[in-house]
C-alpha cells in the first residue's frame, strides 16, 4: 500500500513536471512574452528592460531553472494585470470552480447511473430508446450553446434562475446543468451498456436462482460490476470538466471561478496568471486521478493496489 501511494505520487510528479515544462516551452520559446505583454508602441529599450526584469535575457536553461525554483517556493510569478501573486489570485478564484464542478458532476453522476440502469433493464424498449436518444443529445450539444439556451429560457423568459453571476443558491443550477450535460450523456450510455452486459452474466442468474429480490440482484450485484467501467470514464469527465469545459461554462454564466479567470487572463494577455492556473489545475487533476484509483479499488477488490 505504501509503495503504491509512493509510486502514484511519483507518477503525479512526472505529470506536473511535464505540464510545467510544456507551459515553460509554450510561454518562453514558442511565444514571445514581451511581444504579447507590452503595447505595440513599446520601444526596443523598453522591450529590453522588460526582458531583463523577467529574466528573459538569460540563457533558456537558466530561465527554466529559475522557473522551477519559483514554483518550489510557491512563487508562480506575479499577475501582470492584478499586480498580485498569481498563485494567490488563482487560489481565491478556485473555490467557486470547485463548487460548480462538484455540484455539476455529482448531479451528472447520480442522474446518469439512474437513467442508465433503468434503460438497461429493458433494452430496446421505449424508455431505453428515450435514454439513449437524450444521452446522445446531451453529449452532442455544445455546452456554451446549451448554456445560452438555458439562459434565454429559464433566465430570461421564465425568470426562474439568475441569468448570470453567483448571487444566491439557485445561481448554480443553470451552469451546473450546462456543465453536466455531456457527462450525463456519456456516463449514462456506458452505465447502460455495461449494465446490459453484466445482466447477461452467469452470476446474475445465480443471484436470481438464489431467489434474491430485484433490488438486491440489480441494485447491488449487477450495479457494482457495471459501475467499474463507468467510474473510470466518469473520472476522466470530471477531469475534463475541471480542466477545460468549466472555462466555457463559467464564461457564459459569468461564474467568477478559475475558468473565468483563465479566460480573462487570455484576453488580458496575462501569461503569468494563466500558467499559474494551468499548473494549479494540473496538481488538482493529479489528486483527482489518484482518488479515482482508490474509488475503483473500492468497487473492484480484485484490483491489486501496486499492480
Amino acid at each position, binding site marked *: 500500500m505504501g509503495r503504491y501511494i509512493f509510486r502514484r505520487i511519483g507518477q503525479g510528479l512526472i505529470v506536473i513536471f511535464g505540464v510545467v515544462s510544456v507551459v515553460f516551452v509554450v510561454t518562453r520559446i514558442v511565444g514571445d512574452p514581451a511581444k504579447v505583454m507590452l503595447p505595440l508602441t513599446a520601444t526596443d529599450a523598453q522591450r529590453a528592460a522588460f526582458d531583463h526584469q523577467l529574466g528573459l535575457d538569460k540563457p533558456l536553461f537558466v530561465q527554466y531553472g529559475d522557473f522551477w525554483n519559483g514554483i518550489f517556493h510557491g512563487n508562480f510569478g506575479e499577475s501582470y494585470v492584478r499586480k498580485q501573486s498569481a498563485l494567490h489570485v488563482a487560489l481565491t478564484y478556485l473555490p467557486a470552480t470547485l463548487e460548480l464542478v462538484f455540484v455539476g458532476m455529482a448531479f451528472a453522476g447520480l442522474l446518469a447511473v439512474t437513467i442508465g440502469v433503468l434503460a438497461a433493464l429493458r433494452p430496446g424498449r421505449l424508455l431505453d430508446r428515450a435514454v439513449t436518444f437524450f444521452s446522445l443529445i446531451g453529449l452532442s450539444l455544445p455546452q456554451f450553446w446549451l448554456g445560452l439556451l438555458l439562459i434565454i429560457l429559464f433566465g430570461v423568459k421564465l425568470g426562474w434562475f439568475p441569468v448570470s453571476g453567483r448571487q444566491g443558491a439557485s445561481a448554480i443550477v443553470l451552469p451546473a446543468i450546462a456543465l453536466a450535460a455531456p457527462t450525463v450523456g456519456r456516463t449514462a450510455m456506458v452505465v447502460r451498456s455495461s449494465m446490459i452486459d453484466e445482466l*447477461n*452474466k*452467469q*452470476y446474475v*442468474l*445465480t*443471484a*436470481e*436462482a*438464489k*431467489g*434474491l*429480490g430485484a433490488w*438486491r440482484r440489480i441494485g447491488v*450485484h449487477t450495479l*457494482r*460490476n457495471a459501475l*467499474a467501467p463507468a467510474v473510470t470514464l466518469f473520472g476522466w469527465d470530471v477531469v475534463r470538466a475541471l480542466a477545460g469545459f468549466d472555462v466555457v461554462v463559467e464564461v457564459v454564466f459569468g461564474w467568477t471561478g478559475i475558468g473565468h479567470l483563465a479566460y480573462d487572463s487570455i484576453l488580458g494577455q496575462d501569461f503569468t496568471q494563466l500558467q499559474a492556473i494551468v499548473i494549479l489545475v494540473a496538481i488538482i487533476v493529479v489528486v483527482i486521478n489518484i482518488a479515482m484509483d482508490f474509488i475503483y479499488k473500492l*468497487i*473492484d*477488490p*480484485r484490483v491489486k493496489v501496486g499492480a
Partner: protein
Amino acid sequence: MSDAIAVVDESKGRRDTAAPLLEIDRLRVDFVLRRGVVHAVRAASLQIHPGESVALVGESGSGKSVTALAAMGLLKLPGKICGGDIRWKGDTLLGAAGASRLRAVRGKRLSIVFQDPMTSLNPLFTVGVQLTEVLRRHLGMNRAQANVRAAELLDLVGISSPHERLKQYPHEFSGGMRQRALIAMSLACEPELLIADEPTTALDVTIQAQILELIADIRDRLGLAVLMITHDLGVVAGLCQRVCVMYAGKIVEEGPIDAMFADPRHPYTRGLLASTPRPDSVAERLTGIPGNPPAMDAPPAGCAFAERCTQRIEQCDSHDPVLVQADAGRKLACWHSN
C-alpha cells in the same frame, strides 16, 4: 399435439400415489432468433419425486439445460416457454399465478447449481456475503446468525477454515472450491430438490469425482431429491435411480438406471452407451454415433433421430414416435417398441 395428450393420459394412469415434487409437463421452449425460431424443447415431460435422484442425459444442444432453466423460471430472451406446464407439488410455477409461488420456492425449496463455477459467483463480493444473503432473505436471519450458519455450510461442503474463507473473494478460490461454495449456497435453506446442471463439466477430472461424491453424500444426509443434468452417462451411474434421455428437445427413453444400462432400447440410448467408457467392459471398443443432431429451427416431421439411426424404417421419416409406457417403469419413444 396428439403425442402430448398420449403422454398425459399415460402418466395420469401411473402417477397417482404421490404428487411429484417437480413436474415438467409437455414443456415447449422456443428461441426466436434472426435465423429463425429454434425449438429447443419440444413437449418434454419429466417428474421428480421427493428424495429421488433423476438424471437427465443428452448431448449438448439437446435442450436439457434449457429445461432446467425453464423449471427454475430463469429462462431469458430470446428463449421463451411457449407451451406445457411446470408444477411444484402439483401447482403451476408459470404465469401470474405461478409467479408468487416461484418466488417462495426458488432458492429455498428448489435450487440449482450451474455448470461454470468460474462465472457463477459475483467477482466483487466476498463468498460470505453471497452465502449469507440467501440465509438472510429466505430464513430471515440476522448478520451474526447468517455468518454462523454460512460457516457450517462451507464446512458441510468440505471447505476447511470456513471462517477465513467467508471473508475471501471468488478469485481467491480454485474452481473446485467455487463449485463447493455454490453448492453450499444452493443448500443454504435445505431445499427439497437440487438441480445440478452439469456441475462438473468445467472442472478437472480429479475434482469432478470429489464434487459428485459430495453431491451424493449431501443427498443422503439431507434426503433431498436431485435432478442431475449431464452429457456423461458415467456421471449418472453411481448417483441416480432413474435416467431420462433427451434428444433434440424430447425425452426419447426413460427408466430405472440398471435396466437402462443393461438393456437400452432406444437406438440413441444404445449409441450413447456404446460411446461411454464403462468399467465392466474394458476390452470393448468405444463407438461414436455417426452424423449430427438435426437443426432445431426446422426439426424433421418424423423421428428426430432417424437421420442417424441404424434401424430406420419408413414410418420413422413420416411420423414422430410418442413416448409410451414400455414395461414396468420404462418409457420409450421409438417405432420399434411397438
